[in-house]
């Protein structure tokens, strides 16, 4: 149950860091929301949504700061919240002065939080600002709100679930003589958030959605009902027409109040301050900079993709320049040429730096994954009554953020499997002379253009006999098939093979290793399993560092050039005719201790074309997930960076091609889809 993931001190330090990051995020949001508010406030009316959003931001900040005992932030946020609440509830009007006060408060909060981040501790002297806020907040006058609301005759269950703000919005709408409706809708539990958002959107066009009350649907497992409290100037028929798409029913609530009633609410217009300049106490003032304290920027990864594409194009333009200078050399423009070559070299260096820089932005440490896995280990081992320790290595190994996201689920399932099937119960371990506490180690390291993640357990290992028996039972292999141990282990990756009878709780549903495999293959990764009976198993996931620009091996086959993503290439060898063996009418070769199936690329794309036999050719060993295949090609033309472009919908069903790439010399070549090729070969009966 225990892991080495965290100790108490570590947690506190991390928690404070989390607080600072979240506080900064809240402040960022507040600033932009406030910007929206100030635009709107020009005409006096302020968007209730953005005001509410600012209020909630200040509220969260207050709560967080309170938890950590940062009293200055807490106090200021608290007063700011009170001011915003008064604004929200219409007790204070939003004028230029209040706006300035809000801005000042945000700036002060920003500098307090920044001071904390710099380790300087906060300056608790927020007194002056607090006093200004207090002056702005008027004492609320008596209002006739209670009577107005009770006239509506809403059921108590509904009134009780309204926050003070929602109550206020309801009242505001009643005062404006709008009709109050109850809109009832029933949605599927799986899609209710989109459905509800659609309904709310269409309603908002003609009024205001005041509250959203969920209630139990007809079938508790699959549906959920919502009752929306809605105000609009439109009649019931018009509203009913608005919501026909959502199958919602509309009902008028209470009696329509007579116009003009309750229009005289007590509102304090905040008077301009005269005696005090818009400034706060000095220590905060000096720290007031626009500098972001955590020195990080949040960027949409789409923008990085775009940037990466441009870098890719630049790399291509550069190789065009190289080609031109090569042409010039042949034609003898020697004097200017050396200068051009020098310039091109300089450009190349800068380009490499740029490419590396952009690539690094996308990288995040795998430690983020480890944290999640630590929690999963604790949870599952507890469920299973097993003792498991998780050791992690190489937490700072970096990986493309998109790949990291895609790899998280497969990793979780592998770890779950390791605890489910690998690690034995404590008694069994003791009996086998092992320590009662099982060990799972998770290590990551970079290896060339790959990141390798290994998951190792010291459990009972994969029972090869059991796997074979199961595969025969399920009709995946025939009893006559002779499989090596390696091949037998790989059976676990077949769809329909799952030794687990119970449905996993962590994921909600049982996921087989075939899904793990296809998830890994989707990011051009490979997975290998090794297992020793009684001693444990090791899964090795090999991933490309990034998917944006890839290195490719350019190969030639039947006078055509193709690009082969280097992440799928394991090795390439010279192939002599005598090395090719034929087993069951399929060509194979012996590669160290295993048999490698071969595929002639020209035969794959042009099955009917006559084969030109050449004496020597090359074989490129490629792999996807657990499968390996030797591609027989005529020539290897070296490595190059490529940016893969899609071929468009016209060529969608094309087997074995994933896209096209520019080579920079005006030539466009096709990029091979290794997993597609292997899939085709497997389908046509080949063993891969």
């Amino acid at each position, binding site marked *: 149950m225990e892991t080495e993931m965290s100790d108490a001190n570590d*947690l506190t330090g991390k*928690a404070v860091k*989390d*607080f600072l990051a*979240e506080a900064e995020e809240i402040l960022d949001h507040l600033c932009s929301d406030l910007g929206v508010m100030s635009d709107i406030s020009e005409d006096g009316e302020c968007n209730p949504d953005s005001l509410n959003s600012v209020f*909630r931001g200040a*509220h*969260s900040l*207050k*709560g*967080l700061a*309170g*938890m950590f*005992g940062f009293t200055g932030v807490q106090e200021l946020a608290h007063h700011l919240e009170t001011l915003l609440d008064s604004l929200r509830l219409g007790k204070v009007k939003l004028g230029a002065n209040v706006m300035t006060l809000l801005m000042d408060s945000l700036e002060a909060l920003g500098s307090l939080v920044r001071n904390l981040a710099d380790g300087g501790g906060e300056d608790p002297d927020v007194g002056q600002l607090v006093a200004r806020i207090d002056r702005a907040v008027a004492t609320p006058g008596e209002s006739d709100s209670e009577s107005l609301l009770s006239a509506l005759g809403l059921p108590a*269950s509904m009134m*009780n*679930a*309204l*926050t*003070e703000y*929602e109550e206020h919005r309801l009242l505001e709408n009643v005062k404006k003589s709008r009709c109050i409706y109850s809109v009832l809708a029933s949605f599927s*539990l799986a899609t*209710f*958030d989109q459905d509800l958002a659609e309904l709310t959107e269409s309603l908002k066009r003609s009024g205001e959605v005041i*509250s*959203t*009350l*969920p*209630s*139990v649907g007809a079938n*508790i*497992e699959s549906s*959920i009902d919502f009752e929306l409290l809605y105000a609009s100037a439109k009649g019931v028929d018009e509203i009913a027409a608005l919501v026909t798409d959502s199958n919602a029913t509309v009902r008028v609530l209470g009696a329509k109040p007579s116009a003009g009633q309750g229009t005289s609410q007590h509102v304090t217009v905040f008077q301009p301050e005269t005696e005090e300049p818009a400034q706060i106490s000095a220590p905060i003032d000096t720290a007031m900079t626009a500098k972001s304290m955590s020195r990080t920027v949040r960027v949409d990864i789409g923008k990085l993709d775009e940037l990466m594409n441009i870098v890719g194009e630049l790399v291509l333009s550069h190789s065009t320049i190289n080609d031109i200078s090569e042409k010039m050399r042949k034609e003898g423009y020697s004097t200017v040429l050396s200068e051009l070559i020098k310039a091109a070299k300089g450009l190349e260096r800068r380009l490499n730096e740029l490419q590396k820089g952009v690539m690094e932005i996308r990288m995040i440490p795998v430690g983020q994954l480890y944290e999640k896995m630590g929690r999963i280990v604790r*949870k599952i081992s*507890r*469920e299973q009554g097993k003792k498991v320790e998780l050791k992690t290595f190489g937490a700072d190994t970096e990986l493309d953020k998109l790949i990291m996201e895609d790899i998280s689920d497969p990793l979780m399932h592998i770890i779950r499997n390791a605890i489910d099937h690998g690690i034995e119960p404590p008694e069994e371990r003791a009996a086998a002379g092992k320590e009662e506490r099982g060990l799972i180690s998770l290590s990551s390291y970079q290896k060339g253009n790959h990141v390798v993640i290994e998951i190792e357990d010291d459990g009972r290992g994969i029972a090869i006999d059991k796997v074979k028996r199961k595969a025969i039972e399920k009709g995946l292999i025939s009893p006559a098939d002779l499989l090596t141990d390696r091949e037998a282990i790989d059976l676990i990756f077949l769809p329909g093979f799952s030794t687990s009878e119970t449905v996993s709780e962590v994921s*909600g549903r049982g996921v087989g290793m075939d899904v793990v495999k296809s998830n890994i293959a989707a990011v051009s990764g490979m997975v290998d399993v090794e297992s020793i009976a009684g001693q444990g198993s090791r899964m090795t996931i090999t991933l490309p560092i990034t998917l944006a620009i890839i290195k490719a091996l350019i190969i030639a086959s039947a006078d055509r050039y193709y690009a082969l993503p280097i992440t799928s290439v394991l090795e390439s060898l010279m192939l002599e005719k005598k090395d090719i063996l034929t087993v069951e009418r399929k060509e194979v070769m012996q590669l160290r201790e295993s048999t490698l199936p071969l595929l002639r690329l020209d035969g794959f794309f042009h099955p009917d074309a006559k084969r030109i036999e050449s004496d020597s050719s090359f074989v490129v060993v490629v792999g996807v997930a657990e499968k390996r295949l030797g591609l027989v090609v005529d020539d290897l033309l070296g490595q190059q960076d490529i940016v893969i472009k899609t071929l468009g919908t016209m060529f969608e069903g094309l087997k074995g091609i994933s896209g096209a790439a520019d080579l920079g010399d005006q030539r466009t070549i096709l990029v091979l889809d290794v997993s597609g090729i292997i899939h085709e070969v497997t389908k046509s009966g080949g063993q891969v």
Partner: protein
Amino acid sequence: MKRILVTEDSATMRSLLISTIEACGDYEVVEAASGFEALRLLPREQIDLIITDINMPDINGLELISYVRKNSSYTHTPLFIISTEGREKDVEKGLSLGANEYLVKPISPARLQELIVKYIG
């Protein structure tokens, strides 16, 4: 093993609550980052104690509580509100909707642990 649902939109607050809960005994924590997430989880999971914030972006905690109490599987499940709002009116409202305890932030971890043990052992 008893399971506790924590509904709280602030990630920092959520992880603080989780470590407080995990430190006080063998409980499994189910996390929801919003009211909607809680609505989706509740019919599917077996939950023994619900802890919820009030101020959340999609539906507020009060609305969540009214749902919980209408759901026959959760009519009597202990429910704590953890909120920054501590005015008498807020507390009254929360308790009248069916919350068992109302804790005002900043909460004391010891107090929360004490209450968890009191309600679900």
